[in-house]
């Protein structure tokens, strides 16, 4: 199978700062692969067989090292969509850019059978990019996937619902978004790291994708963030335990209060 995996690098910090436009300040912050995207990537690596896995991400040129570490885990191609014009993109502008990139890859490389994404990113938490991408690419889409198999030309997948697990079957090409931790991502191998040193990261800019300035980034984003506020402490009237022992003692008290 030929699979495209869309990944996002997210900040690995407790506190993030925003600029006046409420755009996250990602400089000097360690970026890691979004957990649900890791699951999508591992699923792709297991499904690819004799095919290929292409990873696409949109971000700063500093994402290069992290993409190389994915090449070392068995990814065949890594594509970095990077341009100042993409800064501040909302989910719609991101999905539009990704959809154009996917189409350009289809022409330049071989066609694809499947696009896998994480179901949501831990920074924005909207979960909107995968369905928007599916609409823009006019492809069937299933979210909240925990398991995927490929059987006689059909995709058989498990989807997590509030009341249980739904089993679905669909044809290719399709877009699926995976739940975090459903497929723990493998580590890089020494051989893979050696190979990755010599591999090229494909870089795509706004011009290469043929996108107008007003179609990308903040300018191409219909979303306007009016205000972001921190969660005021104490709103739920909770007491934070100072240590584990205190926490356990308090928990025991609360359990004792529950009528049997």
């Amino acid at each position, binding site marked *: 199978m030929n699979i495209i995996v869309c990944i996002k690098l997210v900040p*690995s910090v407790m506190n993030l700062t925003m600029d006046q436009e409420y755009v996250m300040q990602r400089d000097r912050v*360690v*970026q*890691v692969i979004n957990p649900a995207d890791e699951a999508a990537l591992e699923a792709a690596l297991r499904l690819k067989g004799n095919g290929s896995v292409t990873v696409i991400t949109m971000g700063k040129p*500093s994402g290069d*090292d*992290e993409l*190389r*570490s994915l090449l*070392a*885990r068995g990814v065949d191609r890594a594509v970095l969509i990077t341009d100042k014009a993409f800064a501040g993109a909302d989910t719609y502008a991101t999905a539009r850019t990704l959809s154009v990139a996917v189409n350009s890859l289809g022409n330049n490389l071989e066609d694809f059978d499947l696009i896998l994404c994480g179901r949501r990113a831990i920074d924005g938490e909207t979960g909107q990019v995968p369905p928007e991408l599916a609409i823009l690419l006019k492809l069937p889409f299933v979210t909240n996937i925990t398991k995927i198999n490929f059987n006689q030309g059909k995709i058989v997948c498990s989807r997590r619902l509030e009341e249980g697990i739904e089993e679905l079957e669909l044809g290719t090409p399709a877009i699926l978004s995976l739940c975090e931790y459903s497929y*723990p991502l*493998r*580590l*890089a*191998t*020494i051989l*893979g*790291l*050696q190979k*990755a*040193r010599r591999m090229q990261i494909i870089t795509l800019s706004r011009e290469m994708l043929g996108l107008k300035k007003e179609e990308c980034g903040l300018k191409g984003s219909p979303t306007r963030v009016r205000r972001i506020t921190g969660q005021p402490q104490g709103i739920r009237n909770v007491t934070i335990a100072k240590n584990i022992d205190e926490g356990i003692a308090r928990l025991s008290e609360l359990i004792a209060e529950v009528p049997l």
Partner: protein
Amino acid sequence: MMSQNSKKHTEACRFCWMCRHLCPVGLTTGREVNTPRAKALLLSMVDRGEKFDKDIAQAMYECVLCGSCTNDCVTGFDPTIFIREARTMAAVEDLLPKAVEEIITNISNTGNIYGVQKPKYTGTAAKAEVLLYIGEVAACKQPTLVTAIMSLLKKADIPFTVLEEEPASATFLGDLIGFVEEVRIQAKDCANAINTSGAKTVVVLDSYEATTMKQRYPEWNCTINADVVTATSFIAGLIEEGKLVPKKITGEVTYHDDSRLARDLDEHEPVRNIIKAMGLNLQEMFLNRRMAKCCGSELLKAYAPELAALTAEGRWEDVNRTTADTLVVVSPQVMNVMGAKVPSAKQIKDLYVLLDQAC
């Protein structure tokens, strides 16, 4: 190719000297390169275009990954992250020191760092709720320790099993080439073998291996379907439950906390409870518990014996500052490293052997 996380730590440590006085290697060699700061500086230069060469690779192996620097860092930085990653880089760039390469060959040929057939041990039952994971250092170099702990389990009426073919825990490979997929696969095989045994509790003799199983296996999705406990807490528990009742022995001893048990697992009291239960008078060493100065490790001894001799001598100096004439240890690695450099007026004893004699 260093991760962004590693770079964050090298950028912080490269101009900081705050933990240099704690590095057991730097303290004994006196060389600038043997400080956490110097290692960070070298790697930050590599990040700025300097060539990662054999000398830099060599410097990364002059470290026991003891975590003394990390433990002392008030700003929460961890040099072991970039040192391990630099070791991966050394393997990728074909720059491993020759002695390190030989150990990796031993591991791939025999599953242990010595390159020998690992001696086999048997438990009291083919299947039991308790599995004793002996580990390669104890199995190959400390049979007396293994016999003592098995004898203690028998005396406490604990049926136990031992894996017929005990796989490597991935601890040593992980310390040699960093956390890569080859290491995770070794860990997965070990977890699978433990799970197949059906044991509910795994008693791990070597604290280095207990640390890997308790802290790394979950990160690597190598689930062990049993409680993993260190031999020290398991034995201390048996004393507490009255299943082992040691006779009192008189004498003054000191104890060396090994770095992974005391720092990574934050476990220092069970050993002290065992010592107390035996009636021994414990003289604490300068730098004990989480602050303990590492004596070296079996791995360091395997690829850099002269360096391990120096770190062991460094720790014996601390023993010499106490009034105790006996150093008790619970780790097969400490027994090997410190046991090779015992000063004439001192002796080293294995706590399990002493306890077995007292029970």
